[in-house]
């Protein structure tokens, strides 16, 4: 190999590398989309590292984006966890009739995608009198004329808001965490869609946006929370947040599923308040938590009010 040829080759390699670097930069940061909103979202900090002013700025940017996309005003709240509050949920298995009113009340409150369909609550149907409850043998597609049916009982499952949440541990970007009031929340702008949390969740409570969520603008609930029911993106994970936009609001409203249940099987309250209905039911009723042996320590209590 003579020198000339070697020099030539070196030059071509250098030019190639230069060109490749430029080209890659072009692909990663498309200049035609280089408006302020894009750059701001690109350099957005982690939610818990932002101060209030920075969060406010992010929220106003998102509100503008949503207004453009949905052609209506959507407010994004950022209510902080209340001091002295640890949320707990109770579900009375002796009363649930499996009517799925909660499922669809949740969809409407929390802006889930209609097609592809996303439900945060799954109602499982079990045959009565089996040796034990096998989640694998439960039926979630049951569709009889009327419910409840003889010989069956129903168990709705949603995020159990674990005190020791495996999903949070598995998240490589810390896009999901447990707030001091016990709610496990997700920052949809920080989620990279790796779905490790879905694999880690023993309750199958997390849902993935395989496609861009599709919900007509007129059906969007405009009262949202940054960590709750604001419209999501393609490729992010979502789940039940105990209706953070309602429960942390000034009025302290009940979650939508509690208010939708026609038989009053769903209970909600502050576990730290000895007067709350949650504390009453834990004290007086037979209570169990799903897959207690996994040490996830859920704050979702299944109980039997009828028939001690």
């Amino acid at each position: 190999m003579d020198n000339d040829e070697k020099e030539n080759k070196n030059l071509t390699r250098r030019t190639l590398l230069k060109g490749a670097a430029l080209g890659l930069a072009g692909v990663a940061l498309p200049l035609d989309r280089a408006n302020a909103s894009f750059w701001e979202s690109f350099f957005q900090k982690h939610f818990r590292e932002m101060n209030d002013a920075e969060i406010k700025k992010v929220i106003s940017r998102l509100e503008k984006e949503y207004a453009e996309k949905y052609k209506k005003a959507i407010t994004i709240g950022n209510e902080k966890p209340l001091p002295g509050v640890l949320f707990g949920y109770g579900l009375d298995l002796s009363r649930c009739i499996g009517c799925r009113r909660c499922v669809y009340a949740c969809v409407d409150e929390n802006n889930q995608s209609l097609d592809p369909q996303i439900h945060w609550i799954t109602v499982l149907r079990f045959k009565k009198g089996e040796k034990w409850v096998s989640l694998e043998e439960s039926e979630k597609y049951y569709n009889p004329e009327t419910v409840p049916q003889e010989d069956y009982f129903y168990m709705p499952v949603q995020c159990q808001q674990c005190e020791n949440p495996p999903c949070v541990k598995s998240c490589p970007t810390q896009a999901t965490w447990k707030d001091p009031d016990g709610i496990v929340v997700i920052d949809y702008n920080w989620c990279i869609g790796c779905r490790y949390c879905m694999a880690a969740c023993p309750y199958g409570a997390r849902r993935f946006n395989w496609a861009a969520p599709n919900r007509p603008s007129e059906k969007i609930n405009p009262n949202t929370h940054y960590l709750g029911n604001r419209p999501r993106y393609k490729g992010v994970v979502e789940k039940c947040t105990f209706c953070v936009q309602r429960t942390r609001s000034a009025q302290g409203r009940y979650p939508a599923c509690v208010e939708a249940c026609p038989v009053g099987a769903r209970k909600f309250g502050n576990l730290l308040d000895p007067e709350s209905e949650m504390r009453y039911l834990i004290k007086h009723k037979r209570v169990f938590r799903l897959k207690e042996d996994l040490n996830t320590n859920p704050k979702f209590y299944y109980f039997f009010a009828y028939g001690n």
Partner: protein
Amino acid sequence: MKTCAITGIGIVLFLSLLFPFSSTESAQQDIPKKLFVTPPPFSEGIFPCSQCHAGMPVNRTPRKLEAMHQDISLKHMPGGWCFDCHNPDNRDTLRLANGKIVKFEESYNLCGQCHGTILREWKNGLHGKRTGSWSGEKQYYLCVSCHWPHDPPFQPIKPLPPPVKPADIK
């Protein structure tokens, strides 16, 4: 300091021995604070009952109703009949077994005569449905909002559609 505290506790204990039932008695009559009960679900135009019954002679013999209210077939409490709960002297009210008169708005006291444990749990937020605020004002549903008192079991309803099966996704 210590003796002070001990006397304080002593006085409280003494008082609670003197009036052991005062607190429980009041708890049985009232529903918890910050709680509002929905109005009774009357059929339209049926209330006040006195608009027809005023001046009508009262027939106290148990019988099958033929002129009016034939649609009500009592499937609650076999052997019972209207005046076990309704007040023959003023139809706009209800009457407990002990003769006490209760308003329709407080009919839970009537149901609680037999269903005492349920009434207790209703007051504590376990039985029945609450809407409103977990931390503040709540609205409660009367027993009769969900249970038609003449045939109380909860009626079966049509379930909402099941989720889409993965196989059906286009």
